[in-house]
C-alpha cells in the first residue's frame, strides 16, 4: 500500500503547519491552563500543587446557579439566534427588488468591533436617555424611564438580545446559503401540487436546512457559551449576579481576583461541558446522516 502511505504522508505535510501553529500558540497555553487548574496559582510568586481542591471549591450553591443560568442563557440565545436567523434568511431569500442591499445591511453587527456594538446597546437600554425607554414613554407604553439593566430578569434578557444581535448576521448568512442550495425544482414540484408559500417553507425549506441549522447551532453554541464581552460591558454579571455566566465567573476569578488556579479549573470545566455538547452533536448528525442519505 505504497500509494496510501504516500497519501498519508502528504496529508500530514499539509496539516502540519496549521497543526503546529495552533499547537504552539493555543495548545501550549491550553495545557498550561489545564495544569494551572491543579495549582493555587495567583499573584504569589510560588505556586503549589493542590490537586482537586480548585475543582472541589467550585461546587457550591452559587456555582450550581451559575451553571444553570449559563445553560439557560445559552439555550435561549442560540435558539433565538437560529429563529431570527432563519426568519431573516427567509426574508432575504425572497426574490424582491433590493435584496442585495438588504443582505449587505445585515452585516454591520458582525463587522463592528464587539465592544462598540455593545455600547450602542448600552445606550438603547439606558432608562433615562436611551432609545427604547424613550420610545416606550413617547408612545405611552411606559409611564417613566425603563432601565432594562436594573433588574435581574430584564437584564438577563437584555444581554441575550444583544448576544443574539451580534450572532444573527452570521447565522442569517449561512441559512441564506443553505436555502439557496435547495434545488428550485423541489419548490416548483410542490407548487404544481398546490402547496402555498408557507406550506412550502414548512415542508421543504425547513427540513432541508436542518443539517446546516444543526452545524450552525453547534458553532454558535460554543461561541455563545463563551460570550464574555456582552455581559461584562452591559452588566458585569449583575445586578446581584443575575447575569453571571460561567465565563463571567471564570474571568472574575482568574483576571479580576487573580486566582489563576481556580479560574483555570473553571475554564477546564467549560471545555468539558462544550466537549460533551460536541460529542452529542456528532452523534446526532451521524444518526441523521445514516437515516437520510441524500
Amino acid at each position, binding site marked *: 500500500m505504497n500509494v496510501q502511505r504516500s497519501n498519508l504522508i502528504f496529508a500530514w505535510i499539509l496539516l502540519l503547519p496549521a497543526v503546529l501553529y495552533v499547537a504552539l500558540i493555543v495548545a501550549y497555553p491550553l495545557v498550561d491552563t489545564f495544569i494551572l487548574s491543579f495549582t493555587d496559582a*495567583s*499573584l*504569589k*510568586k510560588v505556586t503549589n500543587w493542590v490537586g482537586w481542591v480548585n475543582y472541589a471549591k467550585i461546587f457550591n450553591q452559587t456555582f450550581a446557579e451559575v451553571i444553570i443560568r449559563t445553560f439557560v442563557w445559552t439555550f435561549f440565545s442560540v435558539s433565538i439566534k437560529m429563529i431570527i436567523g432563519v426568519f431573516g434568511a427567509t426574508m432575504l431569500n425572497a426574490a424582491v427588488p433590493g435584496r442585495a442591499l438588504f443582505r449587505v445591511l445585515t452585516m454591520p453587527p458582525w463587522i463592528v468591533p464587539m465592544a462598540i456594538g455593545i455600547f450602542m446597546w448600552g445606550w438603547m*437600554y*439606558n*432608562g*433615562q*436617555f436611551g432609545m427604547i425607554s424613550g420610545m416606550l414613554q413617547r408612545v405611552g407604553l411606559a409611564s*417613566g*424611564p*425603563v*432601565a*432594562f*439593566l*436594573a*433588574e*435581574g430578569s430584564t*437584564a438577563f434578557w437584555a444581554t441575550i438580545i444583544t448576544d443574539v444581535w451580534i450572532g444573527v448576521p452570521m447565522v442569517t448568512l449561512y441559512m441564506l446559503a443553505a436555502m439557496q442550495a435547495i434545488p428550485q425544482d423541489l419548490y416548483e414540484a410542490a407548487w404544481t401540487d398546490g402547496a402555498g408559500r408557507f406550506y412550502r417553507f414548512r415542508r421543504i425549506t425547513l427540513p432541508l436546512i436542518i443539517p446546516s441549522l444543526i452545524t450552525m447551532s453547534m458553532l454558535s453554541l460554543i461561541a455563545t457559551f463563551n460570550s464574555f464581552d456582552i455581559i461584562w460591558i452591559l*452588566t*458585569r*454579571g*449583575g*445586578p*446581584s*449576579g443575575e447575569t453571571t455566566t460561567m465565563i463571567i465567573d471564570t474571568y*472574575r476569578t482568574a*483576571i*479580576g*481576583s*487573580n*486566582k*489563576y488556579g481556580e479560574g483555570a479549573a473553571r475554564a477546564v470545566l467549560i471545555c468539558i461541558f462544550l466537549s460533551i455538547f460536541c460529542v452529542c452533536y456528532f452523534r446526532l448528525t451521524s444518526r441523521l446522516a445514516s437515516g437520510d442519505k441524500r
Partner: protein
Amino acid sequence: ANQEISWIYCGDKIDPIHEKYIKEWEGKNAGWSVKPEVVGWEQCQDKATTLAAAGTPVAMAYVGSRTLKEFAENDLIVPVPMSDDEKKSYYPGIVSTVTFDDTQWGVPIAFSTKALYWNKALFKQAGLDPEKPPQTWAEEIAFAKAIKEKTGIPGYGLPAKTFDNTMHQFMHWVYTNNGTIIDDKGNIKADSPEVLAALQAYKDITPYSVEGATAYEQNEIRAIFLDGKVGMIQAGSGAAYRLKDTKLEWGVAPLPLGPSAKGQGTLLITDSLAIFKGSGVEEKATEFAKFITSAGPQGEYELQGGAGLTPLRPSAQVDEFVKKEPFWKPFIDGIAYGGPEPLFKDYKGFQNSMIEMVQSVVTGKAEPADALKKAATDIEAFK
C-alpha cells in the same frame, strides 16, 4: 548606560504637564528615560497586573491604592517609605490610603472626595428651602421623599450598578456614620450597628431614588442630575465643572451625616504610583515617582480642574484656588474626616461582596441585617 523606566499611564493621552516634567527629570538624570505607556482607564489596572503576574512587570504603574495590599502581599511591589516630612506635607488621611503594616506601598498621585449636590429648583418646587441642603441622613431621606412626592422627580440618585463606585458610594455613607469595614489590625468590623444603619438608610431612600438604581453607576447618575432629573446626588468635584455649563441652579455641601456620626466623614480614594519589583530600576523609579508627585508638578497637575481631582497637599495655591471656585470648599474640608478605602488582599472579592450586598438591599431581595451579616462573613475570606 541608557535605562528606561516604563510607566503604565492610565488615560487617553499623557497629560502635557506630566510630559513637561518627564522631560525635566530626564534632563536631570542623564542616561535615564521614562517611557509612559498610555492605557485606557478600563483596562489600565488589569494590564499592570497581567504584566506583573506574567513576570515582566513594568517599572511603575498607575493603580488604585486599594490594590496595593494585594500587590504587596504577593511580593510584586516594593515599599516606598515616606519620611515624616513627606507624610506631613499631605492632607491628613491620605498617607493612610497607601499604608499598611506601617509601611507606605505607593505614592499618591490622584485623589478624590465627594460632597452632596442638590438641585435648588427642585427643592423650590417641592416646597423645600433651596438654600438649605440636608445635614443628616434623616433630612436627606425626608427631602428626597418630598421631592419625589411633590414633583414626581426622584429625590436622590443612588448608583448600584455592578461597578466599583457602587461600593465607594456606600462607603461614604459608612464613613459619615462613623462606621468602618476593617480596622487597623485587620479585623472585620462590618457587622456593626453603624454599617447596618447605613444599609438601612439605603433601603429607606431607595423608594425616592432614581428608579432602577442597579442599572446606573455614578457617572450615569451624575448625567441624570445634570439633566435636572434628580434632586440630590453625591459626587466628586468634576460634577461642579459640568454644572457650570448648564442652566441648573445647584449647590454643593458636605455629605449628610448618619445618627452615629462623630463629625464629618468621607471616603478618601487615591490612586498611586506603584513601583514593581523585578524591573531592575526600582530605585530610580521610586525617585521619579516621588519627583512627579512632589508638590510642584502635582500641584500644577491636580489644579487644572475638570478632572475631578482633589488636591493632595495643602498649599497657598490651593487656598487661592478655593477662593476663586468656592464650590471646592466641601471637598477640601471633608478630607480631614475621611477614611481610607478598606485594604483587602482580594480587593475584587471584597468589592463584589459589597456590591452584592447593596444590590440585594436596593432591589428588596434581602433585609439589610441579613445582607450585612452575609457580606461580613463573605469578606472574611478576602482580607
